[in-house]
């Protein structure tokens, strides 16, 4: 009896693609469903004016969500982004009210954000304190600092038209904040997908000890992603200040939850190693669309919070149920 030895077929490339991209495809599908629903349910949703408004409001979330994607890929979390946004927001308004030229203020705020982020990153990476604890402390400290500085008052920003362009301007009809956010997202996708730094971030999230053993600067990589959320929070704080024309220690309350929800909705694993900037963009837009659509439907803003939370929970639950093949939220035993 003779048996012929045959090689396994290559399998369809489409099947590989689908299982690889299942998470992004499902959030894309969910996004389209949300858009379709609100387009039918309200007259205003699909008007260009409203869509641009959605983009403008989603911009600060997207900027921080891109950086948060890096943090979550390293299996970390940054709960302090909302407080960082508030601190930067208030600091920017204060320094502008002292008459400091606005480009200098922007630069100083970016540096301040980087320094705050790096400080938290140092505790996480070099001192081994869980990111959850460090940034929870940061959440309290930084919000407190913002409140202390402003005594709780909102600080108006006046007579800096150049600065206001950041929040209110348009370029070819598209809001400037949206352009900035998309540029940040594009840069983030490029870095994570094809740069050495992105490879290090994924390696550290996937197997930190392996990254150390092959000689990668594992600790510095972990510290640096918190610097990224710090800088991104500074950008978001500036965009919000420029849009509202004021700075307040009460800005961006609950912001961290929106950001983390956007990232996780986009398919980035909370256990590290896997994430997608495209998913984060879609996740952010979905959350923005839901928030905007519910307001247009004149549903009570209190109820909006409940619905947003429930939709996020259900979406993530469906994601893990339907697309479990290779996409479990648990780290695979190895």
């Amino acid at each position: 009896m003779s048996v012929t030895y045959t090689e396994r077929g290559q399998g369809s490339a489409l099947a590989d693609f689908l299982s690889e991209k299942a998470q992004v495809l499902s959030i894309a599908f969910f996004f389209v469903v949300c858009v379709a629903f609100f387009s039918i349910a309200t007259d205003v949703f699909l008007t260009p004016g409203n869509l641009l408004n959605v983009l403008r409001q989603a911009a600060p979330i997207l900027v921080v969500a891109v950086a948060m994607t890096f943090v979550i890929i390293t299996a970390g979390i940054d709960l302090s982004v909302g407080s960082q946004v508030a601190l930067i927001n208030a600091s920017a308004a204060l320094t502008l009210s002292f008459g400091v030229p606005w480009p200098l203020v922007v630069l100083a705020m970016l540096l301040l954000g980087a320094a705050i982020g790096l400080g938290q990153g140092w505790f996480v990476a070099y001192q081994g304190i869980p990111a959850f604890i460090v940034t929870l402390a940061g959440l309290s400290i930084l919000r407190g600092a913002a409140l202390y500085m402003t005594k709780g008052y909102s600080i108006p920003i006046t007579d800096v038209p150049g600065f206001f362009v950041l929040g209110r301007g348009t370029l070819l009809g598209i809001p400037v904040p949206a352009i900035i956010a998309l540029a940040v997202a594009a840069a983030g996708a490029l870095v994570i997908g094809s740069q050495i730094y992105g490879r290090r971030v994924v390696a550290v999230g996937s197997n930190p000890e392996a990254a150390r053993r092959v000689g990668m600067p594992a600790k510095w990589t972990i510290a640096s992603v918190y610097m990224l959320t710090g800088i991104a929070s500074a950008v978001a704080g500036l965009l919000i200040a420029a849009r509202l024309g004021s700075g307040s220690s009460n800005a961006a309350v609950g912001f961290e939850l929106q950001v983390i929800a956007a990232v996780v909705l986009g398919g980035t694993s909370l256990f590290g190693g896997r994430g997608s900037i495209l998913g984060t963009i879609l996740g952010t837009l979905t959350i923005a669309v839901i928030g905007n659509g519910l307001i247009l439907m004149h549903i009570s803003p209190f109820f909006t919070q409940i619905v947003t939370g429930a939709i996020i929970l259900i979406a993530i639950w469906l994601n893990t149920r339907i697309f479990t093949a290779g996409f479990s939220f648990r780290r695979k035993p190895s």
Partner: protein
Amino acid sequence: MAASSALQAVDPEGPVPSGQPQVPRISLRGIRKTFGSIEALRGVDLDIAPGECVGLIGDNAAGKSTLTKIISGTYIADSGSIAIDGEPVSFTSPAEARARHIEMVFQDLSLCDHIDVMGNLFLGREETRWSFLNNASMRERARAMLDDLDIRIPKLTAKVAQLSGGQRQAIAIARAASFEPRVLIMDEPTSALAVAEVEAVLRLINRVKARGVSVILITHRLQDLFRVCDKIAVMYEGTKVAERAIGDTSLEDLVRLIVGKGEEI
């Protein structure tokens, strides 16, 4: 199999004719290491010449992995000294050992599950251009690295998590063997490999030895030792209890030494 290769160990000295006095490639003296209350190593001495393969054997928890991890900079010894080519070194991180061309296949493989085959082969050694990964050039070399080990991995872009245990092990071996090692440490590299793949690994060891690479092989497959090793060091409870030239020992002798019924040297 052809010795076509991504393996291009350069060694200035090359293998030295036997009988000639020479500086050991690696020389360990009095290495000690404790983890909490466990004395993992209780003073180990070991010399390895260039182009020599040492088989490191011993019971489970004898301290084999700990000793090799100290050589590769993964752990730092509590006391004792390491010299490379006669020059004292003290590694504080794996990066320093790797910079001196000490490469190790870890027992747990140390692969990143979420990164593809090519990325794992080049982990920590990525080729870049303006800080961008140079995938085209890495892909070509990755193919050659795998072909060298006779390993069949259809897709270089497959995530390592999707591969079989043996394929994963082969990737870890290819990674350690392909970047001009001067010392190559393999901690149970063949435990998950099939017949043909084990043969390929043994051939690989003989090939790199011929180029003057010093090899430390930890394995529980004692018959393999006689195919590649020049000497065998036996460990027991954190000490080296015996060292035998391969010609002076037998399978039965080694088994006796491992279980602790052999006479001391």
